[in-house]
């Protein structure tokens, strides 16, 4: 294996010739370098996209800090090299290396991939290839690193089952420690690799695909999954932390400009709104809030360590954070006069949101974002984001009146049962908002419409529905392009090809792995980057494997279909999702579940955790009586399996 010093010296010649060499050097402020030889477990955390994007990923930062806090472990980073750097590496036969110590990735014990979205799948294969590690899990031996992956896309791990040794389902803060412990125990024992996989499968929240086999009906739909060894859990229950640990504060400060140069502070995890299209809202339950003091201390420490000019207060729905006004006031008072920009994304459509933004004293007033997601009240009831049009217009008036000149409105086309009138309504609503703006501030008023295409996601109430076809998407986009022309209006949309790729992969089964492999073989990578994405390569890959892409996207699934991701339990029951889907067809909405518990399934599973963490920490109702012990539930099988199949 090539040594770090050889890699270092060859880089001296390579780096001056590539774009933005600062992506590949490491050595940034706050990076952690530990004594390689003195450490027993070495983990490479890999974000399989460009450094510029990956550096802003909070999950990577959290794990980096936690692993490096262990005396016996180290974490280093790696990202996908851009094509010019990949070419240079391959030409000089250099493997992909870690930024901190320039060790080849193959020298690590564990490679941990972050998979927040599906379009990183081909890049994951490419990183393994650049590292000189077998692409297929089955071909790896004791000499190779353990390859694990986690992130939101891992909630349907099946399309990547052939390439990843073990998936982390859920939150990584605690489970990463247990994985490292299991790896250390296995290394001491010196047993075959399969023993490591068996040990991992016993950890709550870990899914080892090699321990299961998939079966299909003659019509091609998924039948079931069978475990190959007795102790493999079925279903695999997602991992959660009962309380959010203190936020990371030692953010690495890149040498170059990246997507977000700011201190991200998670104020709350999970969401109680129950929007039916929203993957994150379903898989990140329950809602856990971080105390105001902890957030303020996190910001203060983060500023001292980085010198950043911006803080992002992150959550899926900022307005719903219990102490949001108190937090916003405290932030603006505490950091007044320090030229700090505070971003507060995901605000509800109500005038209170304008007050919140006002309290932040953001002097930029560049754009105010609202996400009605759909333009008619009927459509918003179907997706369970009930806001009246009058309330939206009233909020828009307040925004323009308080000094913002541009309102960004986010919509989706392709919601279930959408008609062309609903699409036309998007244009009408944008014009209505613009008219409000003109009446308040005249010609300066602007509306930017961001219209993406809805992709049905696993584990959501819309997992049954059909995704729009290329023709439908084109037709709807053409209408919007025609209707949203003119001064003060701007329209952004997604390429339909990119939407379809994400749609195929989102609800894919194990057979999709071969499609991904074939696409990568044909050169697919950086699929999330318009300039690299090649739709025809994917079509060829489907053809080579003999699968019909439309089967995965343009098919309304029968209500009793078994899905290839059902062995992954978010603990939101299928019964709840089914009911919610049927309600949506009738236009029935659900209120915020802080107002009323709909028994989605979180509490019965995690009753003991909730009981141990009473009060405001969780937003689910309190559990007083001692119910089922969590320890009995995990490692799992019987109790929960019974619960699961009884639906």
């Amino acid at each position, binding site marked *: 294996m090539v040594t770090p010093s050889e890699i270092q010296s060859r880089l001296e*010649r*390579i*780096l*001056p*010739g590539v774009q*933005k*060499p*600062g992506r590949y*050097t*490491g*050595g*940034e*402020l706050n990076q952690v370098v530990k004594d390689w030889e003195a450490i027993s477990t070495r983990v490479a955390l890999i974000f399989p996209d460009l450094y510029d994007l990956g550096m802003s990923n909070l999950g990577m930062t959290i794990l980096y800090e936690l692993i490096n806090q262990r005396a016996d472990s180290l974490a280093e980073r790696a990202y996908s090299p851009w094509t010019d750097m990949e070419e240079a590496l391959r030409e000089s036969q250099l493997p992909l290396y870690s930024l901190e110590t320039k060790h080849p990735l193959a020298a690590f014990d564990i490679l941990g991939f972050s998979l927040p979205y599906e379009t990183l799948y081909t890049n994951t294969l490419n990183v393994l290839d650049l590292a000189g590690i077998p692409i297929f899990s089955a071909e790896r031996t004791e000499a190779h690193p353990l390859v694990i992956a986690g992130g939101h896309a891992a909630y349907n791990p099946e399309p990547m089952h052939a390439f990843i040794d073990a998936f982390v389902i859920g939150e990584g803060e605690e489970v990463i420690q247990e994985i490292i412990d299991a790896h250390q125990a296995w290394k001491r024992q010196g047993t075959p690799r399969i023993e490591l996989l068996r040990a991992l499968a016993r950890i709550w929240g870990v899914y080892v695909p090699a321990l299961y086999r998939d079966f299909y009906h003659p019509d091609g739909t998924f039948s079931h999954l069978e475990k190959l060894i007795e102790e493999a859990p079925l279903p695999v229950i997602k991992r959660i932390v009962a309380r959010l640990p203190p936020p990371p504060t030692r953010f690495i*400060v890149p*040498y*170059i*400009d990246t997507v977000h*140069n700011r201190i991200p502070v998670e104020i709350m995890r999970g969401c109680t709104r129950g929007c039916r299209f929203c993957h994150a809202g379903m898989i990140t339950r329950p809602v856990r809030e971080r105390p105001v003091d902890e957030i303020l201390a996190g910001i203060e420490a983060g*500023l*001292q*360590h*980085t*010198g*950043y*000019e911006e803080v992002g207060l992150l959550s899926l729905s900022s307005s719903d954070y219990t102490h949001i006004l108190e937090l916003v006031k405290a932030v603006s008072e505490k950091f007044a006069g320090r*030229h700090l920009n505070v971003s507060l994304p995901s605000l509800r459509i109500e005038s209170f949101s304008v007050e919140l933004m006002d309290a932040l004293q953001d*002097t*930029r007033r560049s754009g105010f974002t609202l996400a009605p997601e759909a333009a008619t009240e009927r459509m918003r009831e179907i997706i369970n984001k009930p806001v009246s049009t009058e309330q939206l217009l009233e909020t828009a008036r307040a925004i323009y009146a308080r000094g913002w000149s541009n309102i960004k409105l986010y919509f989706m086309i392709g919601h279930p049962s959408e008609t062309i009138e609903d699409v036309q309504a998007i244009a009408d609503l944008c014009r209505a908002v613009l008219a409000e703006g003109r009446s308040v501030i005249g010609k300066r008023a602007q509306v930017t419409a961001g219209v993406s295409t809805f992709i049905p996601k696993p584990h959501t109430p819309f997992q049954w529905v059909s995704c729009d076809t290329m023709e439908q998407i084109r037709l709807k986009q053409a209408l919007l392009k025609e209707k949203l022309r003119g001064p003060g209006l701007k329209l952004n949309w997604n390429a339909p090809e990119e939407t379809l790729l994400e749609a195929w992969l989102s609800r894919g089964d194990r057979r999709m792995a071969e499609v991904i492999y074939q696409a990568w073989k044909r050169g697919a990578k950086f699929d999330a980057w318009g300039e690299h994405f090649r739709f025809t390569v994917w079509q060829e890959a489907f053809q080579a494997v003999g699968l019909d892409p439309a089967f995965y996207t343009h098919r309304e699934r029968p209500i009793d279909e078994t899905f290839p991701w059902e062995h992954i339990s978010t603990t939101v029951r299928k019964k709840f999702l089914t009911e919610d889907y049927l309600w949506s067809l009738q236009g029935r909405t659900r209120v915020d579940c802080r107002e009323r518990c709909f028994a989605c399934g979180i509490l019965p599973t995690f009753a003991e955790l909730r009981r141990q963490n009473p009060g405001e920490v969780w937003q689910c109702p309190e559990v007083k009586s001692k119910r089922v012990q969590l320890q009995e539930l995990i490692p799992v099988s019987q109790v929960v399996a019974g619960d699961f199949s009884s639906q």
Partner: protein
Amino acid sequence: MRVRITFAKTDLMRFTGHLDLHRAWERLIRRAGLPLAYSQGFSPHPRINLASALPLGFTSDCELVDIWLEQEITTEEIRLALAQAAPPGILILVVVPVDDRLPALQTVVEASEFSVTFLDPADDLDARCLSMMAAESLPRHWRSKPYDLRQLILDLRLLPDDDQGHRRMQVTLSAREGATGRPEEVIAALGTIPESTRVHRERLIFKETVLAAG
């Protein structure tokens, strides 16, 4: 108060471009806890003024930056605070207060002196330098615009080899606004690939200095 800082840009910081270096300075001053002044108005900008852009990949120990602070602080305190907060690759060398009425740094830079180390053998370097300097003009393109490189080369001389036996030269290039010579262009004109060299800025030459020397 206006403060002039001489700093070294070394090691991995050499891959930070001019705009990113500007941001690195803002963050460095904020981490140091110094009261950085911001411009007034709709979108306030930090009052930081770098003398002369150093092309990506080059090192230097003579970079200059002017910063404005909202309070009077001793230069020694400033130097200590900056040195403690500096990222890897920025070394704080000298901190002096300067008269606020002095013109902006980038308007008074006249020329830059670079040393170039050739990592590959370059036996005929002397001859190549001689013939280049003897040329009346060296027509080249930068970002598809034609220009004459020869006019931007103010001086070129060979230096003794370094301790590893690498050939070295020193080149002084015009650095006036709109007439800035790039060392990698000189290297390319000598028939060498820039990736096989190391370039270090040794000295910034200001209008006054040039006049005084003349």
